[in-house]
């Protein structure tokens, strides 16, 4: 009797019903980054939106250049530029409603500014006069987060809290490719999926974490593929294609708003400049690699599309450029002054009310400052 024949008579104990908790198929990202500009999909785009994004990209690029220049003039302690990534930065702000929240990472000053925060205030951290220069509640922008990926659970918690309260709030959280390796990334995505929190995670995969290229960061097919492990959809998009980023992010935000839960979006882009003004990118990558990406510049891509559609005349270009220059001039002027500093602020916000010890320490500093002033007065 063969084993096969035996099977007929044999009724093994059935396993308890087992079901995949969600169907994995729709969670998987496309095989290649989604593009709109220069593809058939571009025909569906709203010309006004494209023009608006164009103006913002031009201003954004200028902002990055101006901020980098300010480091050279000693007006900023450091600036991590998002040049080349402006399509992600401005779009992250553009897809949100006023009552939504943005959770930026340390590189995302441009997204913060695009959301309406006064550039001078947005740059406070990098200028060095205080850690955060704006009231997060005013524009619903969390502080720029320096410890990588730590802002992601904050976004989840805030979105969850808003949903519990019945408020219409979506949180969009930004993180870099390097940040996806941190445990906090994992924990945040898991919480978001379990709680079905209205959060969108946008990973700007700009190819590097300082000097470390993506290949040393992950062996995943794409970062968007991480989504399936949390039971949320992963979307892969060309991060230099502003229209594509807009469509994908807007869709994810809509989904979150409608109760569909979180989405992980990976935008494939490139950090065209060095990590910060203090970094020497020549130590870890070739100029020719950078050149490839300069050719795929988000502004150029959009200009080509707009030009092709006859939407970009010289007047529009000039207006965009002028607006950017005006922003830069204003920023330059306002940053070209020493901020008013209050040394006793050191003690003002450590606790709701200073402890007796902090009051003593503040008194000590006050006395020192007075002595200093007297000494200077003499």
């Amino acid at each position, binding site marked *: 009797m063969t084993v096969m024949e035996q099977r007929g008579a044999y009724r093994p104990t059935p396993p308890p019903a087992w079901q995949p908790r969600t169907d994995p198929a729709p969670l998987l990202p496309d095989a290649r980054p989604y593009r709109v500009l220069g593809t058939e999909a571009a025909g569906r785009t709203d010309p006004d939106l494209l023009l608006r994004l164009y103006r913002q990209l031009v201003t954004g690029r200028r902002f990055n250049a101006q901020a980098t220049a300010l480091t050279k003039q000693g007006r900023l302690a450091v600036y991590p530029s998002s040049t080349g990534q402006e399509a992600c930065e401005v779009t992250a702000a553009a897809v949100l409603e006023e009552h939504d929240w943005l959770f930026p990472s340390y590189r995302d000053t441009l997204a913060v500014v695009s959301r309406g925060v006064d550039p001078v205030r947005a740059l406070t951290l990098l200028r060095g006069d205080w850690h955060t220069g704006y009231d*997060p*509640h005013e524009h619903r922008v*969390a502080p720029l987060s320096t410890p990588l990926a730590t802002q*992601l659970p*904050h976004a989840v918690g805030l979105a969850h809290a808003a949903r519990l309260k019945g408020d219409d709030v979506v949180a969009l959280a930004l993180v870099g490719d390097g940040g996806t390796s941190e*445990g906090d990334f994992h924990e945040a995505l898991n*919480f978001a999926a379990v709680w079905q929190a209205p959060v969108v995670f946008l990973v700007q995969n700009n190819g590097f974490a300082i000097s470390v290229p993506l290949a040393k960061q992950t062996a995943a097919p794409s970062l968007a593929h991480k989504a399936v492990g949390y039971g949320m959809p992963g979307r892969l998009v060309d991060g230099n294609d502003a229209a594509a980023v807009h469509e994908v992010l807007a869709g994810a935000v809509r989904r979150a708003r409608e109760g569909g839960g979180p989405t992980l979006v990976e935008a494939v882009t490139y950090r065209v400049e060095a990590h910060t003004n203090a970094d020497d990118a020549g130590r870890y990558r070739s100029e020719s690699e950078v050149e490839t990406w300069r050719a795929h510049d988000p502004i150029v891509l959009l200009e080509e599309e707009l030009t092709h559609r006859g939407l970009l005349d010289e007047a529009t270009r000039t207006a965009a450029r002028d607006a950017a220059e005006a922003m830069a001039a204003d920023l330059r002027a306002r940053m070209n002054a020493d901020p008013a500093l209050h040394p006793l602020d050191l003690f003002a*916000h450590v606790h*709701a009310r200073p*402890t007796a010890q902090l009051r003593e320490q503040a008194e000590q500093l006050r006395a020192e400052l007075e002595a200093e002033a007297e000494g200077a007065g003499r």
Partner: protein
Amino acid sequence: MTTVAARPATMAQALTRALRDAMAADPTVHVMGEDVGTLGGVFRITDGLAAEFGEDRCTDTPLAEAGILGAAVGMAMYGLRPVVEMQFDAFAYPSFEQLVSHVAKMRNRTRGAMPMPLTVRIPYGGGIGGVEHHSDSSEAYYMATPGLHVYTPATVADAYGMLRAAIASDDPVVFLEPKRLYWSKDTWDPEDPPAVEPAGRAVVRRRGSSATLLTYGPSLPVCMEAAEAAREEGWDLEVVDLRSLVPFDDETVCASVRRTGRAVVVHESTGFGGPGGEIAARVTERCFHHLEAPVLRVAGFDVPYPPPMLERHHLPGVDRILDAVGRLQWEAEN
């Protein structure tokens, strides 16, 4: 609430009652952590809360402490008052970055715009026969982190009052619950809870004139016992329960030490780098000319917390406290 007993009540019951009352009084109070919902926590401190307030108010989270505390930070940003339970002292460590870099600093970072009115409850300390990682005294880490408040109750009534105060605080509070006192009983009546008083003050638990024992949390009962035993040796010891390690109540502490002229700090935490150094140093700075002897410390040894069968050798006990009191240079007095 089914578990709140008539008097006498345990510290565990008082804590449960504090959570319940805080949740009833303020809809923004949310309890969250591992096993806090259906199970009511491994120490049953959150027992009944999910049933009474729903799982959205008392939530079983995924097993990830950084995620729990990080999510709580986000909830606090939106105006909630999260009360996070860490299951054991050593299992709070994964959330250390969230605690130090965000919970402690968010208010300061935003010039007060984003306060962090959250409470992190951590059962701490040893003496319960716990295997490795279940008996750490981690208060030194939290004391060394500006921006946090650190409370630890030692009595049933304080467990209630201080937890209410912690939850009501607009500042983040690390609330250290001495595990081995969870089942300590007192005649405190849970049906008639005391008024919530602001924490931050030490209290003299026993008046005495010979020397002051400065202690807190799990070591308070040991010090009370030592003070009783000391009578035989002719010493009349004062016992101060610090209650709040941050803010520190220099006033009460120094008043006592100035009166007695001698002090011993007693805690379970390791001696080197532990809370006792700070306490002894600041008392000495402030009371130097009143001191007949250096402020001594009786603490856990400078070793990783021992396995259950050896912990009795590690924990400060009555004898070790009396030995230290004996070394307070009594001859020098004459």
